């Protein structure tokens, strides 16, 4: 075959141009994150790393703006009916799922019922415990009836929790395939692929209902566990944006040309949590551990990663109550002595030949978490308590706590795990969101395994009722007193979110309530 040189070069030029224009047309936003999703199924998503992604594909009935204002999403409006316990939602019309299936009242009903299925509760079941039943009024109207008056119910729906799943598609492909390969929501991005441990790829959904949808053609969530690698990846341009920037890197990144940073105090808190049914962790031992923790020292070590925490939310949050114990190592030692834990030659305490040793299961996904834990490790050591830090993956972390709590709830099986580190954020503007749920009517797993406490349950119900702020605050104080007595969930620090991105990224706003929103975010040149 003989091709004249000139036409060959023309051909090459043409294809190069075609490639170039194709490359220009395709915009990709690549985000480096510290961890991976656990699945793409909103009923089963267990953590923020997962919901950050599922929330781009799925949407809720309502949502929060970065200014913490509750606004319509798949519901255009809602009202409380005269009975005081039924919320009526008017749904957006003409919305389709990525599969092409329609969104309607039937879908909403099925979503509520699947999430609240008593046989197999979904992840938000505990938070929506007030739910009683859901009824279809017409194709675009549903009534959700509660057991009791509850004022935070709708606000809870604004969190990335009860996301509308494509009912027909879910039933057709089954839970596993939906969770791993073919999720379908109404969100601005549709799912492309997930390589576990590596990346999730989403693409723009062209038939999105909203005015502001995806401004980029693709979003890639890269898993980069190492903090340094994450920063490096941004500097070398491999990714456009990174989450979880280590605090000590923020100044340097801010001063680097072509990069921008966000420092946002959040309603997210890192807790040290204890299993109250663990044989070592009696009430007094838990109190001793709490007394041994010095938040000021932790604060100097973790620096810009966060600020000392004393409650489920920062001061100013509705329901704020300092439930920590003062730093008092002598009191801690007294309590441990009284419990029969005597100091051995090696500096650790022993009882019946057993060392007071606790393994803290930590995912290490929050910047500053591991440093804070190392400080706590030494603070506990100073009073004779050994705390080992066991790094685990999110899936294993959730699995351990769920299995233990289920076994205890069903058969009172003595747990083998003792302690873990969690990070959780308020998504309704008040601390009730993170507090232990009522424990007597066990609707969801109780990870700290606190025994049924009717007085607590009753106060909890009151804190969620449509009463005056003063009355609700009073109820929150009762909850705070119980929480202080239990010392099962010890607040360590409130997280400051540190994000960095290329200058070319615009339209990005950090939501302090853990709701990533990539609508309107664009990649310039």
């Amino acid at each position, binding site marked *: 075959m003989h091709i004249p040189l000139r036409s060959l070069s023309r051909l090459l030029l043409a294809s190069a141009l075609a490639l170039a224009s194709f490359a220009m047309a395709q915009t990709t936003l690549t985000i480096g994150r510290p961890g991976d999703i656990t699945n793409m199924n909103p009923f089963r998503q267990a953590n923020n790393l997962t919901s950050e992604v599922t929330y781009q594909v799925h949407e809720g009935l309502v949502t929060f703006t970065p200014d913490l204002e509750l606004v319509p999403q798949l519901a255009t409006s809602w009202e409380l009916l005269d009975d005081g316990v039924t919320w009526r939602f008017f749904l957006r019309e003409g919305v389709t799922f990525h599969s092409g299936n329609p969104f309607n009242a039937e879908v909403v009903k099925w979503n509520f019922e699947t999430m609240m299925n008593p046989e197999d509760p979904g992840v938000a079941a505990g938070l929506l415990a007030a739910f009683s039943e859901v009824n279809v009024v017409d194709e675009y109207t549903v009534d959700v009836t509660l057991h009791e008056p509850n004022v935070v119910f709708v606000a809870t729906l604004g969190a990335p929790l009860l996301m509308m799943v494509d009912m027909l598609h879910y039933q057709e492909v089954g839970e596993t395939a939906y969770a791993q390969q073919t999720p379908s929501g109404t969100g601005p991005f549709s799912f492309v692929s997930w390589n576990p441990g590596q990346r999730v790829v989403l693409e723009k959904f062209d038939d999105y209902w909203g005015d502001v949808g995806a401004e980029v053609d693709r979003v890639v969530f890269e898993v980069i566990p*190492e*903090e*340094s690698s994450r*920063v*490096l990846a941004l500097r070398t341009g491999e990714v456009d944006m990174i989450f979880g920037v*280590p605090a*000590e*890197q923020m100044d*340097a990144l801010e001063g680097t040309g072509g990069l921008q940073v966000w420092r946002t105090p959040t309603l997210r808190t890192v807790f040290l949590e204890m299993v109250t049914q663990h044989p070592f962790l009696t009430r007094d031992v838990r109190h001793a551990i709490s007394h041994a923790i010095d938040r000021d*020292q932790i604060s*100097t*070590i973790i*620096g810009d990663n966060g600020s000392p925490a004393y409650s489920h939310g920062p001061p100013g949050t509705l329901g704020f109550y300092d439930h920590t114990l003062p730093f008092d190592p002598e009191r801690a030692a007294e309590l441990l002595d009284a419990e029969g834990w005597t100091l051995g030659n090696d500096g650790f305490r022993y009882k019946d030949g057993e060392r007071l040793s606790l393994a803290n299961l930590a995912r290490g996904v929050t910047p500053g978490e*591991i*440093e804070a834990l*190392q*400080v706590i*490790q*030494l603070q506990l*050591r100073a009073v004779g308590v050994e705390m*080992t*830090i066991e*790094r685990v993956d999110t899936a294993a972390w959730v699995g351990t706590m769920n299995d233990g709590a289920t076994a205890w709830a069903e058969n009172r099986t003595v747990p083998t795990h003792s302690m873990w580190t969690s990070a959780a954020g308020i998504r309704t503007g008040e601390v009730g969101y993170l507090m232990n749920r009522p424990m007597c009517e066990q609707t969801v797993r109780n990870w700290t395994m606190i025994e049924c406490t009717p007085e607590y349950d009753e106060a909890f119900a009151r804190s969620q009722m449509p009463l005056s702020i003063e009355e609700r605050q009073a109820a929150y104080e009762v909850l705070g007193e119980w929480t202080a007595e239990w010392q099962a969930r010890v607040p360590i620090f409130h997280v400051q979110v540190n994000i960095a991105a290329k200058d070319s990224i615009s339209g990005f706003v950090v939501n302090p309530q853990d709701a990533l929103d990539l609508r309107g975010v664009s990649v310039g040149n």
Partner: protein
Amino acid sequence: MRAVIRSNPLLREVVGSRIAQLSLFVTLLYVVVAAFGPQLAPYSEIEMLTLPRQAPSAEHWFGTDEIGRDIYSRMLVSARVAMTVGFVAVAIGLVFGFVMGVAAGYFGGWVDATLMRVVDVLLAFPGILLALAVITFLGPGLTNTMIAIGIGGIPGYARLVRGEVLSVLERDYISAARALGANHLRVIIKHVTPMLLSSLLVFSTAQLARAILAEAGLSYLGLGVQPPFPSWGGMISSGQRFFLSAPYMAIYPGMAIMVLVLALNMLGDSLRDALNPQLRKATTSSE
């Protein structure tokens, strides 16, 4: 000391070489640090002293780590961890491997066949893999690290010893001793073992280097010595997280491992070179 060196041709040759002198000196230096590390350390290896991630200064020679501990002190104490794991692991491999190798080589037959199949199985797990398998069911920690690495060293010793025993046994005087009905243990101790010493010495030096690298690797993965106690591998692992702002956190411990392993390998080379004529003679005479 001098007399001892002069009377032993091997030692004389080793000490005579510059490279050998240097590597021996470095190795001994590490041994001294391992022995007296905690006394030499200016600060406590686990107490927080100051602000985190302080760059190296007159006060903290190698800077401070992520929670304000003195890196220099932690490194000195880590030398003991590395040396302890190294020597104990080598001892485990040596003792078990030696017994297996001697038994297999001396008795032959089904004893040999069985033991060598066991060795084959252990050899089927390359490098650090056997140690990982052992750690998986023993759990992490200092003692388990020593056991895990030690088990990994057994098959190498067993094969070496078996081969040497076989070649020694072919010598006339030992055949004679056996033919005269000398008792097994006596033959092994009096005649076989001394012949093995030099090759075991060379091999053990290399094994020590291998064990120290393995310990560093396991600690780097978080499966070795557990925090707050220091180990070079663990220090590199936590230093990696601050590699951009405080690279010294990982670099000093990394250099510490490298220099020690380098010295051990050089020492091993020198020993081998010094022994080589002897070894060669030994093999040719048995042909």
